[in-house]
């Protein structure tokens, strides 16, 4: 069967049963970009993010037998990656240097003139959000995980996730002044 038509779980089954490196490579190719983006949200450093990603994939390979198929591979992998990134941040003694979004620094409504600009503003604003909000927003919007799955990945209670999601979204809304953008 071609790799493209197989689910993550199918590939994991092959990794577990016959230590299929080809199947594992398929998983790496599928998840490395999303994984890198998530690791960057936690670490804010490209080199460290890559190291955390490598570490996470190696853990998946070495501990494949511990995957029980009770959750999706995606959730399981992101939990490993999230923990690897947190550990790396701790070992690098890197303090959370993210700053809370300054209300006064919000982009004026009249600066939003095109969707491309909006995208840029959102991307810049995300970078300025606290790490926890960045992580939750990334898992929700990019990885398209449910609130329950985000809870499984991060270990955060449902209420905390909702709060991070709400606050992060509100800050982005303030920055892009989307309401005015829609009206215009």
């Amino acid at each position, binding site marked *: 069967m071609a790799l493209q038509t197989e689910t993550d779980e199918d590939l994991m089954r092959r990794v577990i049963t016959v230590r299929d490196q080809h199947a594992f490579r398929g998983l*790496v190719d599928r998840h490395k970009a999303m994984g890198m*983006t998530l690791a960057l949200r936690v670490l804010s450093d490209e080199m460290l993010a890559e190291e955390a990603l*490598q*570490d996470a994939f190696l853990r998946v390979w070495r501990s494949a037998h511990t995957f029980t198929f009770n959750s999706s591979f995606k959730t399981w992998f992101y939990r490993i990656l999230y923990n690897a990134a947190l550990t790396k941040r701790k070992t690098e003694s890197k303090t959370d240097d993210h700053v809370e979004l300054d209300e006064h620094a919000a982009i004026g409504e009249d600066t939003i003139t095109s969707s491309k600009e*909006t995208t840029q503003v959102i991307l810049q604003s995300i970078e300025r959000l606290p790490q926890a909000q960045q992580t939750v927003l*990334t898992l929700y*919007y990019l990885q398209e995980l449910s609130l329950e799955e985000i809870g499984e990945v991060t270990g955060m209670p449902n209420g905390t996730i909702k709060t991070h999601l709400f606050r992060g979204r509100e800050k*982005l809304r303030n920055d892009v002044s*989307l309401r005015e953008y829609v009206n215009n």
Partner: protein
Amino acid sequence: MSTTNQHQDNQSLLDREIKAAMKLGVRVPHADFTRELMSVIAEEELSPVASRVSASRLPWTLVALGVVFLIVALLIPGSSEASSEGFSWSGSSVWTIAALGLISLLALTQTKPRFRGL
């Protein structure tokens, strides 16, 4: 359009914009990422026993052995002489060379470039 409906429309548009921005902001690891990772895995599979030896534990084992050999070398009285019959190997010099060999091996393992992140 009612205020509530308009709010919902804005909300979903905001969500779509965030989603689109997130997708555009996806970052990929360096080009050789997969190849490097797979080569480490292939190496591990070929020598599973060697891979189980902790990279941090091995050098300390070498250091310990080197120190033991040096102590033995110091305890054995040296009797090597450069004479017309040539150099004669004493127990002490053999132990000293063994200790130096182990320390050199340690230096080699420490300077060997390793896969990033391991």
